[in-house]
C-alpha cells in the first residue's frame, strides 16, 4: 500500500503550479480587467498623490509581463497590499484571522464527513425503506438550504429571540479577562484546554455551536447524498455477491469491503466538500460576526476594500489547494488504482 516518493514529488510540484495559476488569475482580475487598477489599490478615499504613488507601485506604465513579475514578487515577499479599512497590511490581517476560521471550518467539515458517511450508509443498506426515504429527504433539504439564510434564521431564533445560545464573537471578553485567559496559538479551543481554563473553553464551544451547525448543513447534505448513492451502487457490485456466496458474514462484508470501496470516492470528493465549507464560512462568519477570514473578506466586500478582498480570496484559494493535495494523497493511499 505504500505510495512512491515520485508520486508525492509530482503532486507537490503540481501544487506550486496550481498556486502559480491562482496568482495569474488574480493578476488578471485585479490588473488587467479594471480600467484603472491604481484606484482599486489606493482605496476610495485616496488623494491624488496617493493614486499617483499607487501607479508607480503597480508599475502600470510598464508592459504586462513586467507587471506580472512584480505582482508575483510582491506576493512572495509578503506585500499583499494594505487594507484601507483596517490600515494594516493585508497579509498580517489574514494571518491573524486564520485560526478562528480554521477552528470553525475544520470542526464543521469533520462533523459533516463522519455523520454524513454514517447516515449515507444507513440509508443505502435500508434502500427504499422508510428510514432511507427519511434520510434522503432530509439530506436533500440540507443540500438545498441557502447557508446565509439559515445563518440569519438560526441566529435570530436561538440568539436573539430565545437567547439560548450566544450570538457573535469567539469568546466573552470579560470572562476571558476574569479567568486570565491568554491566547497563545490563537486556536481558542486548544488554548483553553492547554491552560485548563474550563469556563472559557465552554464559552468558546457555546459560541461555536450555531456557526458550526449552520456551516455543516450543506456539506452534510451533500455527503449523505453522495455516500448513499455510492453505497447503493456498490451493493450491486458482483464482488459483494461473491463475498456473500463465499459465505462471509454480512457485517464483515459491509464494514470491511463495502465501506472501503465507498469511502474511497467519498474521500476523493472531500476536497470539494471542504471548498464548500470554506465558502460557506464567508457568509456564516459575516452573519455571526465571527472574527475569521470570512468575516474579513465579507467586510472588505461591503466596504470595497479591494486589496483585502483579493488578498483574502487568494489566501483561501491556497488553503483550498493544499487541502485538495492532502485529500488526493489520502485517496491514493486507500485506492491503489489511482497512483500515477
Amino acid at each position, binding site marked *: 500500500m505504500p505510495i512512491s516518493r515520485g508520486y508525492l514529488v509530482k503532486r507537490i510540484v503540481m501544487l506550486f503550479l*496550481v*498556486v502559480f*495559476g*491562482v496568482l*495569474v*488569475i*488574480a493578476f488578471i*482580475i*485585479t490588473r488587467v*480587467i*479594471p480600467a484603472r487598477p491604481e484606484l*482599486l489599490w489606493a482605496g476610495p478615499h485616496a488623494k491624488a498623490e496617493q493614486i499617483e504613488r499607487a501607479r508607480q507601485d503597480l508599475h502600470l506604465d510598464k508592459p504586462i509581463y513586467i507587471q506580472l513579475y512584480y505582482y508575483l514578487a510582491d506576493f512572495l515577499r509578503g506585500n499583499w497590499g494594505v487594507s484601507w479599512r483596517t490600515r494594516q497590511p493585508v497579509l498580517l490581517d489574514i494571518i491573524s484571522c486564520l485560526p478562528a476560521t480554521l477552528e470553525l471550518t475544520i470542526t464543521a467539515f469533520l462533523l459533516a464527513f463522519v455523520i454524513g458517511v454514517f447516515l449515507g450508509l444507513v440509508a443505502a*443498506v435500508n434502500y*427504499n425503506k422508510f428510514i432511507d*426515504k427519511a434520510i434522503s*429527504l432530509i439530506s*436533500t*433539504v440540507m*443540500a*438545498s*438550504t*441557502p*447557508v*446565509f*439564510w*439559515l445563518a*440569519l*434564521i438560526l*441566529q*435570530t431564533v436561538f440568539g*436573539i*429571540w430565545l437567547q439560548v445560545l450566544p450570538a457573535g464573537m469567539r469568546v466573552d471578553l470579560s470572562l476571558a479577562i476574569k479567568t486570565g485567559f491568554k491566547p497563545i496559538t490563537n486556536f481558542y479551543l486548544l488554548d483553553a484546554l492547554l491552560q485548563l481554563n474550563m469556563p472559557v473553553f465552554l464559552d468558546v464551544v457555546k459560541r461555536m455551536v450555531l456557526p458550526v451547525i449552520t456551516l455543516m448543513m450543506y456539506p452534510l447534505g451533500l455527503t449523505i447524498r453522495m455516500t448513499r448513492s455510492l453505497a*447503493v*451502487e456498490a*451493493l*450491486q457490485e458482483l464482488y*459483494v455477491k461473491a463475498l*456473500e456466496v463465499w459465505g462471509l458474514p454480512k457485517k464483515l*462484508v*459491509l464494514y470491511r469491503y463495502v465501506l472501503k470501496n465507498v469511502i474511497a470516492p467519498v474521500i476523493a470528493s472531500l476536497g*470539494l466538500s471542504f*471548498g*464548500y465549507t*470554506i*465558502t460557506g464560512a*464567508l*457568509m456564516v462568519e459575516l*452573519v455571526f460576526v465571527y472574527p475569521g477570514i470570512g468575516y474579513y*473578506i*465579507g467586510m472588505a*466586500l*461591503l466596504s*470595497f476594500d*479591494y486589496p483585502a*478582498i*483579493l488578498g483574502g*480570496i487568494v489566501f*483561501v*484559494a491556497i488553503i*483550498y489547494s493544499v487541502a485538495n493535495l492532502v485529500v488526493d494523497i489520502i485517496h491514493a493511499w486507500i485506492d491503489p488504482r489511482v497512483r500515477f
Partner: protein
Amino acid sequence: MDRPQGEILVTLPLHDFFKFLTRRSLYMAGFIIVIMFVVIGCIAPYILTRPEEAWGTAYDLRKAFQPPSLDHPFGTDAYGRDMLNRVILGSRYSLIIAIGVVGLSLVIGVVIGLVAGYLGGAIGTTLMRLADMFLAYPPLLLAVALAAILGRGVLTTIIALAVSWWPWYARLMYVTVNSVKVAPYVEAAKAIGLGRAAIMFRHVLPNSLIPVLTQAMLDMGSAILEAAALSFLGVGVPPPIPEWGRLISEGWVYISKAYWISFFPGLALLITAIGFNLFGDAVKEYLNPRLRNIGGGL
C-alpha cells in the same frame, strides 16, 4: 449478457419518463416545483398585483414593516412594499440568471472540452490544465472576486458565475468525449471515410452531450443559490432589483423585528433548490439502467 455498446438515442422517450415520475411522489413534487418556478418566472411581470411596489418604484412608508396578513401575505418591507409581489418578481431574475449562467458556461465549457477531448494530446492537456487553474479557487470565491471588480448588475453576475463554472463542464465534456471517441460506432464512421470535423459534430458531440446536459439541468438549482449568495454579499444585482438574495440582505438589518422580509425570499430559494435537486435525482435515476432493478443489496 452485455449488449454491445451502441449509440444513445438523442430523442428521449418522454412519455416513459413521465410514467416514471408519476410512480414516485417525491420526484413528481420536484418536477412540479421546477415547472412552477419556470412558469412563474416567465409570466411574473404579468401577474403582479402591485407591480410598482415589486419593481421598487413606488413606496409608502406608512405601510412599512407590516407582518404577514391577508392583505400582504408575505408582509411589507422597510419601504412599505408588498413582499409577495417582490418575491414573485424576484423569481424572474433568478430564472434569467440561472439560464444565463448555465447557458454561458455550457457553451464555453462544451466547446473547450470538445476540442480538448477530440484533438487530445498536448492541446488537450493544456486546455485541461487551464481549466484546473480556475478550479483551484473554491466554489463561488472566484465569482465573488470577479463580481467585486466588475461591479453590480445582472449581466456581470452572470459573467462572474459563468467564468467560475465553465471548467466543470469542460472537464466533464473532456472525459465523456475521450470515452466516446473510442466507441465502436466512431470507428465505424472513420472506416467509412467520414472527415474529422463531421465525426466530431455528428457522432461525438451528440453522444457526449447527454451527461453534460443532465448535469446542467441539475446545476440550475445551484446557480440560483450562488447568484443569491453573490447578491447577499452585495456584489450581485444592484437595488432595487428584487432578486431573492438581495431581498434577504435588505431584511438582514431588521431581522429581529421584521423577520418576514428575509424569511420568505429565503423560503422561496429553499423550495426552488429542493425542486431542482429532486428533479435532478429523478433524471439521474431514470437514465441509470442499473438502478431500476434493485430490490436490495445484502
